[in-house]
């Protein structure tokens, strides 16, 4: 009997479709894996019934000879940033603890419509603010991977989609949703040896996703293969009139059009990404990636993205600015936590509720965002940052004249230990240095596993493509995947 939890999206879907196993069997296997993985703390709440109900429907539909959806029978993890009807939705915050929306996010609804079920709501950095999943009100998530030094130090799964990455890497879910504002899909994917793609800004509706930074937030899939990502992204993407920034474009058949033959394609290698302090192993994996793409037929060209070094500081102005405004609605008036001290007035209630309900990192970003938008500072910070954003975008525009996609590391280091960087926010922010430019430019970008470093930890390679050209990104990802032969998996210790 196959270990069903080893299967990915496509294998499950196809197996259910041909009757190798039932959707219910798959759901039960993963529900058991979720129940068994409490030590990873990947889930805030488990929803085994949701997964089972969806599976039963798929099995019944199959028995009735109905056409099955593209995700039929696949139970997935849902990042707890997506509103799920009747199921607690917290953004990993205390302020939304117990909040059960009366609505379903567009993306999750699309997945259910495609036949997927939900194993549970996945842990994340609070309001998606963090790179290690250590800012969650519901506790740290542990990376299933451990160093090969026998030290057993718990490692960060990356963030903010840390529950997603841990669950998929740990075979607790075949796939999970993530959201990426400044690397929150790609960096955790890299830290856990899985694949994840952030599509072009606007591909996936933001309706029903708790907002962090509206102009940057994008949902995307996290799975263990490029093809699984393509299948799941097709189910998640599509125009949504309820989101004004949604792209009014048809969803291409990315999975059907996957093609690892890169003949005639040019891969751009941005010289500015060779930064001081980048791990030796990371640089080596980058060289490997270049060689693999050459092998796949691509021509290698050096390119320049001159404003790269300004991207991270600009990001840490724009994203907190938007967040400071987006998070104003959590005020204790209508839903979520309310802290109303005796005799308190409105202002006291705001202060008490928000002091109690937000974690330190969220408060830090609200303070930064409030500061950079303040009278007298707006032009010096926000306006300047937006100019940089435009320059970063135009860097890429010029790059596309010379190449079809860009290859770079996903992160400057492999996974670090929990607690290593929590006292130094700037060191933490630096983790996003390679991820943020594509976010500012709204471009599709993915991370695929490239191998293990000397500590036995996975490393990711990042591919960035022109707007709307997810296919180029997925194809290059597939070429790397086929050549990297990444089959390593974390040893179960939980």
């Amino acid at each position, binding site marked *: 009997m196959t270990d069903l939890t080893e299967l990915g999206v496509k294998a499950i879907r196809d197996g259910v479709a041909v009757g190798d196993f039932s959707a219910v069997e798959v759901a039960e296997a993963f529900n058991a894996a979720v129940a068994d993985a409490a030590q990873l703390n990947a889930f805030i709440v488990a929803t085994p019934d949701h997964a089972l109900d969806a599976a039963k429907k798929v099995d019944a539909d199959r028995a009735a000879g109905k056409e099955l959806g593209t995700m039929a029978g696949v139970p997935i993890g849902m990042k707890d940033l*997506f*509103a799920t009807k009747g199921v607690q*939705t917290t*953004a990993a915050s205390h302020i*939304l603890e117990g*909040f059960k*929306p*009366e*609505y379903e*996010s567009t993306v999750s609804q699309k997945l259910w419509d495609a036949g997927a079920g939900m194993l549970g709501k996945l842990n994340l950095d609070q309001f998606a603010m963090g790179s290690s999943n250590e800012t969650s009100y519901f506790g740290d998530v542990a990376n299933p991977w451990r160093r090969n030094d026998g030290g057993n130090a718990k490692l960060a799964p990356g963030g903010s989609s840390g529950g997603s990455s841990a669950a998929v890497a740990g075979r607790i879910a075949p796939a999970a949703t993530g959201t990426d504002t400044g690397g929150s899909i790609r960096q955790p994917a890299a830290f856990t040896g899985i694949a994840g793609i952030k599509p072009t800004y606007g591909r996936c509706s*933001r*309706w*029903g*996703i*708790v*907002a962090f*930074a*509206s*102009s940057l937030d994008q949902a995307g899939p996290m799975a263990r293969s490029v093809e699984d990502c393509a299948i799941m992204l097709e189910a998640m993407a599509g125009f949504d*009139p*309820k*989101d*004004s*920034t949604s792209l009014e474009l048809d969803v291409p058949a990315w999975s059907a059009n996957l093609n690892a033959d890169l003949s005639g394609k040019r891969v751009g290698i941005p010289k500015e990404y060779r930064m001081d302090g980048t791990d030796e192993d990371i640089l080596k994996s980058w060289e490997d990636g270049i060689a693999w793409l050459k092998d796949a037929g691509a021509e290698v060209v050096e390119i320049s993205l001159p404003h790269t070094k300004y991207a991270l500081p600009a990001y840490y102005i724009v994203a907190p*600015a*938007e967040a*400071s*405004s987006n*998070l*104003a*609605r959590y*005020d204790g*008036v*209508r*839903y979520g936590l309310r802290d109303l001290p005796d005799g308190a007035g*409105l*202002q006291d209630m*705001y202060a008490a509720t928000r002091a109690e309900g937000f974690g330190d990192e969220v408060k830090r970003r609200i303070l930064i965002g*409030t500061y950079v*938008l*303040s*009278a007298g500072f*707006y032009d010096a910070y*926000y306006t300047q940052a937006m100019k940089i954003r435009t320059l970063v975008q135009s860097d890429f525009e010029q790059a596309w004249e010379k190449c079809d996609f860009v290859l770079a590391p996903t992160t400057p280091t492999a996974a670090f230990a929990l607690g290593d960087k929590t006292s130094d926010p700037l060191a933490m922010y630096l983790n996003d240095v390679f991820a943020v430019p594509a976010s500012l430019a709204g471009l599709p970008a993915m991370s695929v596993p490239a191998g293990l470093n000397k500590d036995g930890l996975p490393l990711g390679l990042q591919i960035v493509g022109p707007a709307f050209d997810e296919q180029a990104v997925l194809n290059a990802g597939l070429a790397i995947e086929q050549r990297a032969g990444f089959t390593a998996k974390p040893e179960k210790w939980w």
Partner: protein
Amino acid sequence: MSNYRIQGATGQWEVVIGLEVHAQVTSKAKLFSSASTEFGAEPNVQVSLIDAAMPGMLPVPNRECIRQAVRTGMAIEAEINKWSRFDRKNYFYADLPQGYQISQLYHPLVGEGQLLIEADEKAGIPEDKVIRIERIHVEQDAGKLMHDQHPTMSYVDLNRTGVALMEIVSRPDMTSPAEAGAYIRKLRSILRYVGSCDGNMEEGSMRADVNVSVRKVGDTELGTRTETKNVNSVRFVMQAIEHEAQRQVDVLEDGGKIVQETRLFDPNTGHTRSMRSKEDAHDYRYFPDPDLLPLALDDAFLEACRESLPELPDAKRARYTGELGLSEYNARELTAEVETFARFETLLAATAKGIGKPEKDVATQVANWSLSVAPGVIKALGDEADVSHATAERQASILDMQAKGEISGGQAKEIFEIVLKTGREPGEIADTEGLKQVSDTGAIEEAIDTIIANNADKVEEYRGGKDKLFGFFVGQTMKAMQGKANPQVVNQILKDKLG
């Protein structure tokens, strides 16, 4: 230039006024959600997930609200910005679920425009005056706090949250309370012509923030201004200005300084009082709303907006005096309100058709009827009048009979009275109630012959040159005919017979 002056101990002061009018856009749905905007609903029944700022909810602009604001801009001859953008105005308050108001600070939908206020000697506006309008932007309204529902807590009603407002910002071009009043009335009239706002100030569909400063007559620099918020009637706006200007003069005459601040108007006292000073002013941290794309209007949309505009008050007034030959007074009165001109134009068309003459030939008769005769009858009847009986067809029929000499002016009123009370048809009333003039020359001649025979001395005097006696004969004849004789016929026969 208005002659409004405030006399202080050290000399004369003049007042400078700018108005920011918030006008609720006429639209079934809110600016960024599909919730209803209807007035008077139970609290919190017209609240969408977006209005309540639930997590993950996103605004989607309502095309109708944008269209109405553009049409309004066109009606004040303003520049329409084909590219505009929404900004967030951030502040915390319980009536503001999002924690920010979506507004337009940096790139408003409508740019520079203007409107004309008309001379009104009696009100102290010596001549027509153009008031410049700086901009119109579109924004969300807030909810309403209710402080009388619970002994220690306030409740909030979010029905109004997210309703579309136009903020119409004038230049500081007004120099008297009368001008400010005329400006608001004219603006209200335009909005109602266009149909972009119902102008109902009692229901809060229009409110004004009043900016006032004073300076010595002859000074060119503006004084420090105060802003009195949310004044909700024309009378209150004028009162607020009078009080605030006088207060500022008093402060300055006493050697004090005006503090730039936000003030509140108290309708009970007619006074303004300080709400918060500039130092306590919010820092709204405006920035472009990242949930919304910039608003780009194409030529077809603008053309459709322009084509949908009705004839506007100034043009209508000019046509009434020019083409229809109405007096300035009649034209102004008839064009002031949408309902008034609509009634007039319907009646005019029906009357012209009934009589078979061009509109211009009957316009003055219809105008007089509409402005003075008919309202007089309705007013005199009070509760007895059911104005729904006063259809255009019935009124036209009365005017038709009058124009043809079948009834007199007095009979027209009497018939109209019966119409208002009963809804009967005027022709039938005239016939059955004996409300018709006698144009039958035989009957009139007979009556006149009798009068001439009975008043030989007066006839003698008249023929001797005492022309004034002609009136006497007319009176006697009308009396003999019980007021039902056609006066023109009477005059003619009398002239013939008296020689």
